[in-house]
């Protein structure tokens, strides 16, 4: 376990893991939780939209709004998990503000959707507000937030600044200001952007990074490039050339079989290198590459492989560009 890796895995108290749909950001968030727990941290994994399967993937029960231990690591830390449904965040918020039964009844009579419709971004803000309370109370050494997918991550994180345009006063504004302060303090909160080594996800990651660094004022952790094809330098040769250099004679059928996979692999690897270089040179952030796992269905074992891959020296953008 290298020092720099420990340094970045534990460099903040709230890590918001974001990525466009399909890049595997929830899986990376879970692997991050496991990696930090192995380093000794008491980790709280928070699934914002409560997507199914995350609790079992981490070795525990399906997540719900109760904070539960999912996994203890012998001699090290643990992973806890929970969801934060907007209505629960709303109830907790009212309680916290000391507004008693009257307002709570009002809220339930009107129903959160009605209030949320009148106050755009409120649901997101309430969830972020709850995360802010957990952070302030030091509910865990590290809180990992599995942010909403697809186009919803940026609106989620922008809800605090966006709401202040509409709401001029009152506790919602106070809440927005406090959440904004947390998002702008790198010691308290940073974002981990997850992407794939492909053109469209890389373009979207660059846009997301600029948006989060700019409007939202979030500090960014190293970029995580998920599902990278393993480096196999031998693929740059044809099977026949490769065989000659290892002094092996290949039959015609073996050459054809190996060529049927190597042509695809070589093209994908070339594109992967181009996209990683583009990401590094555009954003100038350190990067971590995670291997593409040869399965469409992940298990706890696979999560361990990804956690190991997170705890490695970072790829600095310049070093990567020169390889």
């Amino acid at each position, binding site marked *: 376990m290298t020092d720099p890796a420990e340094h970045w895995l534990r460099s903040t108290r709230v890590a918001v893991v974001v990525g466009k*749909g*399909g*890049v595997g950001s929830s899986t990376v968030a879970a692997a991050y939780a496991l990696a930090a727990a192995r380093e000794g941290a008491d980790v709280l994994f928070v699934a914002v*939209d409560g*997507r199914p*399967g995350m609790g079992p993937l981490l070795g525990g029960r399906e997540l719900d709004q109760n904070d539960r231990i999912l996994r203890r690591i012998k001699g090290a830390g643990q992973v806890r998990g929970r969801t934060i449904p907007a209505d629960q965040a709303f109830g907790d918020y009212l309680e916290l503000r000391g*507004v008693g039964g009257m*307002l709570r*009844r*009002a*809220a339930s*009579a*009107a*129903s959160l*959707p*009605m*209030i949320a*419709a*009148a*106050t*755009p*971004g409120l649901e997101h803000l309430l969830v972020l507000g709850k995360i802010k309370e957990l952070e302030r109370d030091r509910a865990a050494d590290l809180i990992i937030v599995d942010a909403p*997918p*697809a*186009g919803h991550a940026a609106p989620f994180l922008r809800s605090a600044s966006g709401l202040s*345009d*509409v*709401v*001029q*006063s*009152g506790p919602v*504004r106070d809440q927005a200001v406090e959440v904004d302060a947390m998002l702008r303090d790198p010691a308290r909160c940073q974002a981990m952007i997850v992407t794939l080594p*492909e*053109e*469209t*996800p890389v*373009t979207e990651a660059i846009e997301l990074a600029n948006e989060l660094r700019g409007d939202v004022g979030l500090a960014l952790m190293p970029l995580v490039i998920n599902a990278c094809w*393993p480096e*196999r330098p031998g693929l740059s040769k044809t*099977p026949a050339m*490769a065989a000659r*250099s*290892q002094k*092996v004679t*290949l039959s015609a*059928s*073996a050459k*054809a*079989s*190996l060529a*049927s*996979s190597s*042509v*695809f*692999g070589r093209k994908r690897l070339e594109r992967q290198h181009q996209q990683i270089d583009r990401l590094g040179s555009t954003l100038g952030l350190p990067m971590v590459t995670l291997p593409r796992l*040869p*399965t*469409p*269905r*992940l298990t706890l074992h696979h999560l361990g492989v990804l956690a190991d891959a997170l705890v490695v020296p970072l790829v600095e953008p310049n070093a990567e560009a020169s390889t």
Partner: protein
Amino acid sequence: MTTTENASAPTGSFVSEVSSASLIVTCGPGGVGKTTTAAALGVAAARAGRRVVVVTVDPARRLADALGLDAGAASDAPHRVTGLPGIDTDEATGELWALMLDAASTFDRLVHEQTANAKQAEAILENPVYRAISGSLSGAQEYMAIERLHQLYTSGEWDLVIVDTPPSRHAIDLLEAPDRLIGFLSHPVYRTLTVGQRAFAKVTNAAASMFLWAVRRLAGPQIVEDTVEFFRSLANIEPGLRKRAGEVSVLLRSDAATFVVVSSPRAEAIGEAEHLIGALRDGDFPFAGVVINLIHPMPDPLTPVDRAALADIGDGPLADHLSWHDELTDLAVSEREELAVLADLAEDVSVVELPLLAVDVHDVAGLVGLADQLVGGN
């Protein structure tokens, strides 16, 4: 090389949908190539001689470029796609147009249509609460995709309208959007706030006054006034909205419409696609079939003799070839097991399997290649 083609063994085709449907809706989980599939279906229909418009939501930049759309800036008016082989000739009748959904301006257009005069429309359009929510009201984007589809369909200008749905974890939101809007308008608090156009001070309904009190406590007095004003002005267009939501709900279940589910062979995507197919069937929506995209190519197997000959090679470039061959084979095999689940579930409809290409689709030529596979022209 046949490496990228041999993954594709189409077991179905959308040839009848692209040549006879009036509406096609593509839906599915994020990151599976939904927008690309919608565009390719449009290409296929245009090449079959039809006048087609594809409504996209947040297309990836390269695809937007291919369609002549300016990514980042929504372009709400249809834009002709040029450079399609076979339809840019004088005798050809097919045309492909594309537009990018702009939820806010679609909502604005709806307000204009449904109000009696410009003054009423302005009262709504200039309300700060309206301005803030027209793009972000829960389900608004999904509803507006459907609303735009209805506008284009009823305009009579198009043989076929194809709508790509917003990326949504619960893709089912789209189908429920009209019903949800009706539910919102039927909410007792909303009803009390709008019925009879009473002054705020005279709101006597307990739930409504509590609602206003809660909003005031939480967000301050200004937003209460804006909110009440907004709900009041919305009351003017409510009958129209309600009627429209009903029409859309009927249209989506009619013979003119059909749904195509797009997925990838990853387990999470398949799970969502299964859920979506169930919802389409439960809701009596016409369901044309499934596109399973991004399937890894299956390498040609090594013979037992060849494998035995390669059993003891040490590290080196040939070992890279061998381990890569085995890894790609394992992945390709397990993906085929995953997608068999989906194929079983959709055995009475078309299932088209598309390979993960070595290079992503990013131009019209790529769309044409995909279109040929979707209509069985492989």
